[in-house]
C-alpha cells in the first residue's frame, strides 16, 4: 500500500468519527445552545465529506448553507425562545412514531441503494451529450438542461416555503417588515464588519455563479452566499429588511421561476417543454442562472428573516 493511500484511509476514518460524534452530540446535547453549535460544526465536516466524495458542487452548497444560513437561523431562533420554553424532552407517542418513521425511511433508503442496478450511472450519457448542453460543468448541464424539470420545481418549492413562513404572520403585522430592527455602535467592530465584508461577499457570490458554467458553482451556491451577505448587512444594522408588501421584493422573488418557466414554454416550439436548442443553450442557461440567483438569494434571506412582525408604517 502506498503512503498516499494510507494517508487517505487515515483521513477518511478520522473524518467519519468526527462526523458521527458531532451528529450524535447535536442530538443528545443539552442545553440547547450546545446542540446548535454541534450542528454548525457538523456542517463543516459534512462539507469536507462531500469533497472527499468528489462532489465539489455539493460541498460548496453545504459550506454556504451551513456557515452562512443555518447557524444564523438556529441562533436567532434560540434567542427568541423564552427560558420557560426550555422543556425537558420527554419520550411519548409522538416521539416513538417519529423514531419509527425515521428508522423506516432509513431502512427504505438503504434497501433502495442496495437494490440499485450495478453502478454504471449516467456519467457516460452526460459526458457524451455535454457538448450540446450549453455548459462545460456536467453538474450545471444536468441541473439546467438534462434534468431542468427538477430544478424548476425546486425553485418553486423554495417560493412555496416562503409563502408558508409568511402565512405565520399576524394579520395586524401583514405588510410590515420581517425580523428585528438591529442596531450597532456606530464605527464599532460589528458595524465595520457589516460594511467591509459585503463587497467581498458580493464578489464571491457573483464569481460562484459565473464559475458554475465550467466548474463547480452555480445559481444555488452563489445565491446562498448572497443571501448570507444580505443577512449580515441586516444584522449589522446597515439596512433594514424590506416590507413584505414591497413590489420590487415580490418581483425579485418570482423572477427566477418565471424566467425559467418562460424558457421552458418557449422550448415547446423547439420540440418539447424545457428543451434547450443546442445553438442557444448557453445563452438560455446563463439567463436562467442569473435570474435564479437573484430569486434564490432573496428567497433564502427572507426565509431566515421570518414572517413580518411589526406593521409600523414606512419611515
Amino acid at each position, binding site marked *: 500500500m502506498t503512503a498516499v493511500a494510507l494517508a487517505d484511509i487515515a483521513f477518511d476514518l478520522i473524518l467519519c468519527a468526527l462526523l458521527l460524534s458531532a451528529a450524535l452530540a447535536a442530538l443528545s446535547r443539552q442545553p440547547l445552545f450546545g446542540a446548535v453549535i454541534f450542528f454548525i460544526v457538523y456542517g463543516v465536516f459534512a462539507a469536507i465529506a462531500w469533497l472527499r466524495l468528489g462532489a465539489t458542487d455539493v460541498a460548496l452548497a453545504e459550506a454556504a448553507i451551513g456557515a452562512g444560513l443555518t447557524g444564523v437561523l438556529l441562533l436567532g431562533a434560540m434567542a427568541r425562545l423564552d427560558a420557560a420554553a426550555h422543556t425537558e424532552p420527554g419520550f411519548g407517542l409522538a416521539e416513538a412514531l417519529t423514531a419509527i418513521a425515521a428508522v423506516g425511511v432509513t431502512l427504505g433508503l438503504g434497501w433502495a441503494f442496495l437494490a440499485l442496478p450495478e453502478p454504471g450511472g449516467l456519467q457516460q450519457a452526460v459526458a457524451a451529450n455535454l457538448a450540446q448542453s450549453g455548459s462545460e460543468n456536467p453538474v450545471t448541464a444536468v441541473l439546467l438542461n438534462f434534468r431542468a424539470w427538477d430544478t424548476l420545481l425546486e425553485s418553486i418549492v423554495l417560493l412555496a416555503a416562503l409563502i408558508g413562513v409568511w402565512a405565520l404572520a399576524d394579520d395586524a403585522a401583514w405588510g410590515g417588515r420581517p425580523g428585528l430592527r438591529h442596531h450597532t455602535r456606530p464605527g464599532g*467592530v*460589528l458595524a465595520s*464588519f457589516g460594511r*467591509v*465584508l459585503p463587497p*467581498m461577499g458580493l464578489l464571491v457570490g457573483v464569481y460562484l455563479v459565473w464559475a458554475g458554467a465550467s466548474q463547480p458553482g452555480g445559481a444555488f451556491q452563489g445565491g446562498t452566499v448572497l443571501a448570507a451577505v444580505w443577512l449580515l448587512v441586516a444584522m449589522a444594522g446597515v439596512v433594514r429588511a424590506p416590507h413584505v408588501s414591497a413590489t420590487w421584493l415580490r418581483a425579485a422573488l418570482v423572477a427566477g421561476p418565471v424566467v425559467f418557466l418562460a424558457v421552458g414554454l418557449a422550448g415547446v416550439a423547439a420540440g418539447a417543454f424545457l428543451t434547450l436548442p443546442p445553438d442557444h443553450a448557453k445563452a438560455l442557461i446563463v439567463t436562467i442562472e442569473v435570474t435564479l440567483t437573484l430569486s434564490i438569494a432573496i428567497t433564502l434571506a427572507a426565509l431566515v428573516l421570518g414572517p413580518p412582525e411589526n406593521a409600523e408604517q414606512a419611515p
Partner: protein
Amino acid sequence: MTEPLTAMLVGLGLVFFLAGTLGLIRLPDTFSRLHALTKADNLGLGFIVLGLALQADDWNVLGKLVLIWAFALIAAGTSAQLVARSALRRKSTPSERQAP
C-alpha cells in the same frame, strides 16, 4: 525544489493549530482560551497558506489563497472581539439575560 519548503511550512502551521487546540482545552478560563485560539488560527492558517502558495500552479489559485487568508483574518479578529465583549458583558451583568 520548493517541495521541502512547502512541507516544512505546512508542518509549522500544524504546530500552531495543535497549540491552539491544546490552549483551548487546557487554559483555565474563557478569556485566556480566546487568546490562545485567535493566535493559533491566524498563524496556523497563515503558514499553511504560505506553504501551499508555493505549489499553486497559476495566479488564479494564488490570488484565491491570499483572499482566503485575508477573509480568515478578518473573521477571526471580528469574532474574537465580539465574543469576548459579549462574554465580558454577560459576566458583569449575570441577571441581564433573564430580564430582556
